[in-house]
């Protein structure tokens, strides 16, 4: 307590030297305040639970496109009776036929299965050349019609993608730019969030220190494939079989008669294992996404605060974690055929470089990642931070699976696009770190340190690429060169990229180049400005 009081006193006397004569009284006042500081009672299990919900919702938004109108469901909703009631009704109606037909585990579906189309197998259907429109136009100009449409529920995607460019514009605009162009102020919902004219004008406050990264290629010499086109895949979404949707025609919920609805579709489906230690399965037929998590109504609460802090020796071996996750997948009939060798996420170790092992906070939950393979290739996210796939979270205190996220259908259309054949151009982007680095921080206000990122020999994999069309998002897999990050010099524990991912579709590079007019090849990283990092990080 003395340290913080002294620090505050020193600051006070600089601001108002006249206070110095009251030093002892100020010290006493501050000591009293600090002695009566309430205990915050921050709960790690709450943090983890909320994180799972947030990630699941983020994944839904990512699939649906961010322009989709907000239909958020808060944690309170999930805790509410409405959810429980709806779940029970839907479970009774649909769980029997769904489970009897084995929708989770069955590789092929019979004609009678209402959840046909949701096989876990990869299906690719040929489409015409450039069938997914202009890949460089990541967002179409927003019109008043778009805005009007955005206020209604999102619509099923057209099965046949138009051959003409989808809203190609001379200059793509960010959503915020579009808001500005339309003179719209976007405010948050429910009184929270957003900014308005009466809000204080807060200026950006950049850190005093930053690291400027230079990318250096240290891999072997390589050449681009001698082809002129690449096959881009588009993930196909639809509401599935008419049979599933037709079930609703026959339902009366008591409160209303569902048969009165027109063109009714199932958008979400929740199945509950109503038993101790059971799970809840959320299924979104349109997006083709399954999430599984513990049935919070039937779990034994764990008082994490009363448990001793975990140490490195409490972390099970990778093999043990993978065995637990695999056992869960087998028990629920989840096919791993399209996924590569599972690995344990190391993200919880980020930022601990140079920290003593005993000071590292060990999370209660470890994540087993199952990387998606399409045509035998990995699928990387644009930023190079992670690979696509699904994840299984295992509580290492109980060795029980707590949740599964990211399992999705793999139905694609394929279309050929011109390939970038200029290796120098590809390397220019690779040594920039990504396609979209704008370097728009005011570099002159930083004290810049230098660091080097070494990139290894690239491999051709897929990059997951989102293209926006009105209030729809289109998920594309674009062949890309993936340059692994080998090391940073000096070693930097907070550099998060695992790879630099450069797509090989020429028009994406064209668009990036056209819009990236500033393009300093730097990524800046700030460092603590006031105090050295604490020995123990409480929140990460």
């Amino acid at each position, binding site marked *: 307590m003395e340290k913080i009081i002294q620090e*505050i006193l020193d600051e*006070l006397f600089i*601001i*108002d030297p006249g*206070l110095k004569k*009251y030093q002892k*009284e100020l010290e*006493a006042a*501050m000591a*009293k*305040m600090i002695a009566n*500081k*309430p*205990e915050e009672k921050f709960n790690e299990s709450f*943090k983890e639970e*909320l*994180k799972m*919900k*947030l*990630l699941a919702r*983020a994944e839904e*938004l*990512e699939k649906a496109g*961010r322009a989709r109108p907000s239909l*958020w*469901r*808060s*944690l*309170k909703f999930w805790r509410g009776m409405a959810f429980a009631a709806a779940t029970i009704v839907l479970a009774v109606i649909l769980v029997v036929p769904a489970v009897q037909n084995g929708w989770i585990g069955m590789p092929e579906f019979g004609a009678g299965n209402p959840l046909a189309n949701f096989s876990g197998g990869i299906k690719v259907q040929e489409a015409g050349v450039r069938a997914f429109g202009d890949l460089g136009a990541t967002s179409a100009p927003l019109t008043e019609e778009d805005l009007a449409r955005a206020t209604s529920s999102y619509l099923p995607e057209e099965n046949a993608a138009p051959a003409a460019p989808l809203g190609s514009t001379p200059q793509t605009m*960010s959503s*915020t730019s579009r808001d500005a162009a339309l003179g719209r102020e*976007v405010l*948050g*919902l*429910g009184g*929270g*969030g*957003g*900014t308005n004219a009466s*809000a204080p*004008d*807060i200026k950006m406050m950049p*850190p005093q220190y930053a690291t400027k990264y230079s990318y250096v290629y240290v891999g072997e010499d390589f050449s681009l494939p001698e082809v002129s086109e690449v096959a881009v895949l588009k993930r196909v979404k639809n509401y599935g079989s008419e049979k599933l949707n037709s079930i609703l025609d026959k339902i009366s919920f008591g409160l209303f008669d569902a048969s009165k609805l027109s063109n009714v579709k199932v958008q979400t489906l929740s199945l509950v294992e109503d038993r101790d230690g059971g799970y809840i399965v959320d299924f979104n037929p349109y997006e083709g996404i399954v999430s599984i998590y513990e049935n919070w109504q039937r779990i034994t609460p764990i008082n994490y605060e009363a448990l001793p802090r975990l140490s490195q020796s409490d972390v099970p071996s990778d093999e043990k974690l993978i065995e637990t996750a695999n056992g869960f997948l087998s028990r629920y009939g989840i096919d791993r055929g399209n996924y590569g060798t599972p690995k344990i996420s190391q*993200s919880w170790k980020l930022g601990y470089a140079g920290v003593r092992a005993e000071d590292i906070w060990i999370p209660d939950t470890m994540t087993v990642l199952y990387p998606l393979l399409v045509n035998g290739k990995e699928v990387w*996210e644009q*930023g190079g*931070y*992670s690979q696509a796939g699904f994840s299984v979270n295992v509580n290492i205190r109980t060795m029980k699976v707590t949740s599964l996220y990211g399992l999705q259908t793999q139905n694609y259309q394929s279309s050929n696009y011109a390939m970038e054949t200029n290796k120098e151009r590809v390397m220019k982007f690779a040594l920039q770190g990504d396609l979209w680095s704008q370097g728009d*921080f005011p570099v002159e206000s930083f004290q810049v340190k230098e660091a080097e990122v070494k990139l290894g020999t690239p491999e051709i994999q897929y990059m997951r690429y*989102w293209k926006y069309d009105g209030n729809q*998002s289109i998920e594309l897999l674009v062949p890309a060169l993936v340059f692994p990050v080998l090391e940073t010099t000096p070693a930097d524990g907070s550099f998060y990229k695992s790879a630099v991912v450069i797509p090989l579709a020429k028009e994406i590079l064209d668009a990036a180049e056209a819009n990236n007019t500033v393009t300093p090849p730097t*990524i*800046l*990283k*700030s460092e603590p400005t*006031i*105090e050295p990092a604490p020995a123990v990080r*409480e*929140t*990460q």
Partner: protein
Amino acid sequence: MDLVQEKQIVKACQAGNFEGIGLLYEAYVKKIYSFVYYKTYHKETAEDIVSDVFMKALENIGSYKSGRGSFSAWLYGIARHSVVDHFRAARPSINIEDVWDLSDDQNLEIDLDTRQKLLAVKKYLAKFKPAHREIIMMRLWGEMSYREISEIAGLSEANCKMIFSREMGKLRAEMGAATFLLFMFLNL
């Protein structure tokens, strides 16, 4: 996570790529919880509000405009509004920013141990303007730097320092000699 990476993640989220949302969450969840807890003093209420804050932030991240301030200021703004909404639901006619704006006869849910501690300082803190009280609590209880406080409060760093210094002067005068003597001889 540093500010530059944070900005990159936010931009990616605004473009529909939520790959980094977990990192943003990890960076802010405890800070936001503390901020909310110091306005509600009730664990379950704080957890409900924090859940709302992050869900709202996720759903509305497209509305965040970097030109108007930092992401953290935006997020704390959501938290502040969410707390007000929470209290407004109980007393629609009064602008309530935190529990200090409520009188003692309100049937408030406050953690028991916290209630005892607050009794010791309430008569002093309740006299400050809500915004000034927030600055005092962030500096003394949250041990936040003036840079952080200024972002959250939407004021300049110099202004925050000035407010804190002035209010500490008042606090000293309010607490007076009795507290000083207790501090000196009873070690509080």
